[in-house]
């Protein structure tokens, strides 16, 4: 078990290293950040001086080694744009993105899984068809369009909900959270709905497919034949068996919401990490891009680890770290 966790962490470190090399080479290939940062009428000597002060006059390999050396000492670099440590900028915005992602995932689970169960158990009924038809919308409508329609409907026409920002926040352990105030919840409603829509559709389809697969199997029919109460068949026999693929997808989806909530965050002007990374890419703010991707890689490694551990809980046949894996 411990060997398994250590192995996973080492893999993660390898991925982080590879990713940092790719980002360095990639940003270098795009161009020179000084061109974007500087006042256009600055003279050539000023440009050289800026490049020197940001370390951009060094050859790429040396810039990379300097970065690695500082990273080993816990410094991930300072933003060119803000002159604030990159990791500080990211962590300041992490709570905003986390509560958005958690809200969307929770909403998707509480709506998607029950609807998927219904659609799977009563396959031929009219309401199952309505659910499945509805899920097609969730899949096919582009997020940015839905976001704009939500803003137009609930913000501009009806005027019920605020359309941007986090609203009132409350500090808990020094971190600002929106979901603890009513105003914050009102601000959360639209972006969470926007983000959740695709996931609701995904969970409906996934749950339904799994249920359709499990229900005809012998052990379910046998349990029914034994006269076990249908609700017990559902919870003990069906639900438990469909949870493994669903847990995997929840994990991956949660990670990708945190990492790629970019579209929703920019439409709702949500001050999260997605907005930060887009602005940083536009400005070639390399320290922030590298630090952001490192945070994301670490998060994915961690989520995968948790998912693997949950497998073991859900399915006793899985033995982590055994040589057969």
């Amino acid at each position, binding site marked *: 078990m411990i060997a398994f966790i250590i192995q996973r962490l080492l893999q993660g470190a390898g991925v982080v290293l590879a990713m940092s090399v790719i980002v360095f080479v990639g940003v270098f290939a*795009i*161009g*020179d*950040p*000084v*061109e*974007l*940062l*500087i*006042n*256009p*009428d*600055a*003279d*050539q*000597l*000023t*440009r050289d001086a*800026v490049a020197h*002060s*940001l370390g951009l006059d060094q050859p790429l390999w040396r810039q990379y080694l300097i970065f690695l050396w500082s990273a080993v000492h816990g410094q991930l670099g300072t933003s*060119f*744009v*803000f*002159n*604030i440590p990159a990791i500080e*900028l990211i962590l*300041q915005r992490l709570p905003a993105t986390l509560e958005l992602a958690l809200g969307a995932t929770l909403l998707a689970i509480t709506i998607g899984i029950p609807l998927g169960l219904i659609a799977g158990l009563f396959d031929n009924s009219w309401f199952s068809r309505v659910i499945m038809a509805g899920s097609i919308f969730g899949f096919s409508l582009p997020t940015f369009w839905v976001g*704009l329609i939500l*803003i*137009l409907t609930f*913000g*501009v026409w*009806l*005027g*019920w*909900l*605020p359309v*941007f*920002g986090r*609203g*009132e926040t*409350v500090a808990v352990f020094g971190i600002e959270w929106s979901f603890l*105030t*009513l*105003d*914050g919840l*009102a601000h959360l409603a639209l972006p969470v709905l926007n983000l959740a829509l695709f996931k609701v559709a995904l969970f409906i389809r996934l749950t339904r497919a799994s249920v359709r697969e499990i229900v005809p199997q012998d052990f379910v029919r046998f349990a029914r034949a034994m006269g076990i109460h249908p609700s017990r068949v559902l919870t003990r026999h069906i639900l438990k068996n469909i949870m493994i693929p669903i847990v995997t997808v929840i994990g991956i989806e949660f990670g990708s919401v945190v990492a790629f909530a970019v579209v929703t965050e*920019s*439409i*709702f*002007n949500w*001050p999260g990490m997605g*907005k*930060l990374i887009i*602005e940083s*890419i*536009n*400005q*070639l703010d390399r320290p922030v891009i590298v630090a952001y991707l490192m945070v994301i890689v670490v998060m994915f490694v961690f989520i995968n680890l948790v998912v693997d551990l949950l497998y073991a809980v859900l399915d006793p046949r899985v033995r982590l770290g055994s040589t057969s894996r």
Partner: protein
Amino acid sequence: MKTKKIGLAIGAILLATGLNHGMAQAEDAKVGVRSESASMDPHFSYVATNKAAVTNIFDTLIMRDEDLQLKPALATSWKHIGDGVWEIKLREGVRWHDGQPFTAQDVIFTFERAPNVPNSPAPFGQFLSQIAEAKAIDDHTLHITTRNPSPQILFDLAEVPIISKHAGEGAATADYNNGKATIGTGPFKFVSWSPGGSLKLARNDDYWAGPSDFEHVEVIAMPNDATRVAALLSGDVDLINAVPPESFQLLKNNDAINIAMTQDVYTAYLHIDTDREVTPNITAKDGSEIGNPLLDVRVREALSLAINRDAIIERLLQGLAMPAGQLAGPTMVGYNPDILPTPYDPERAKALLAEAGFPDGFKLTIHGPNNRYVADGQIVQAIAQMFERVGITTVVETMPANVFFPAASARDFSIFFLGWGSAQGTAWHGLRGVLMTYDKEQGYGSSNRGRYHNAEVDELTIASMSTFDVDEAASLSAQAAAVAFADFAILPMHYQMNVWATQKGFAFVPRQDQMTLVYGLSRK
């Protein structure tokens, strides 16, 4: 504390549920701006968006009004008293936000600090490079000795926010970001700032030019155009800047919205390679190498004649621009009213091309950014079609600004679309940056990416930057521009317009320099 918060939250919910129009606190204002500010340190980075944010809090000695004219601010008068010495009288009775008096010592401290902010990506040094010495004669008189005989110092002083010595001594950029050192003399006091999020301000009741109408103000960065417009329409913000052209008619026809607009300091133009014998993106129609046709002034004129500027402005910019014939705008010092925009004349363009030895045209690739200027990608497409009409086979390549600018500076392009902002409101600013011969040592032609070179333009521009007389400087700049634009050194396209929109009941003073200053917002 907690009950108060919940009370506030309930209040906000009530506001959010349909009563938001007109229910907001009469004394408060919310402003949505396109670009975030990168720092609250007034000297950290000289870019327009930063300057706008800190100008709410800090004053300059001399300020530019909405039409770029120099006006007294912390300095009440200035005059050249001989030998390159300028005597500057400072405003008396001005107090910093913490109550300390403002004196000449603060100005001298600012001059020392501003060029030396560590890690600054766009340093202020260039605006103070003219100052050889600054001396306090008494608390409210300053003598500044300049290096060159030039009125440039006055325009430069309009760029440098004055900070207080007592709060700023030893303060780093972080101390300005958290408010510790953010003590100004401006119309608003600093309350809080989060990077890329929002800036909260409170009114300075003792402001020397009179207090603002608003007690609490929040300036929120809203980079997404649709979001900014929606926030205004839903009543969540009172003022937005950079109204996108596609929303202009919608907002203009809305009775609950006021529009405020003016000309922009940005001039869009086509830069062309007038230097290399063979330029990378121009070939014969069959793809074989030819000499650079842009070296011939007749070809350059033909390209300019081929462009229908009015059509671009009407169709792509919804009328929100004016055709341009030079870099400087009509209210700038040194604008030359005799230089007119090139008319649209495709027949004459074809004739000129034939005369220059290209009766069948040639093949070129035109480059441009697609996320930097208003409708930039579409404009480049339109220009390409207009070139096709006079017989030049044209390929279009547009790209994000972060790819475009480094490549343009590396001289990867032959003809490319971009803009130049003469934020100081002087014609020599653009002449020096874009049209003078590239000279790294002297700092001339730093944005001359086409490497145009003309000794006469150089001489006249240097002369215009070497006189104490503003009128003479203006006339010399106008002459330099006449030479350069008669030579089609670059092809000016149009002056952009700046558009703001407010809720009904608010008025906003639109500024040519694009700055969204909260002090310009008032109750009607």
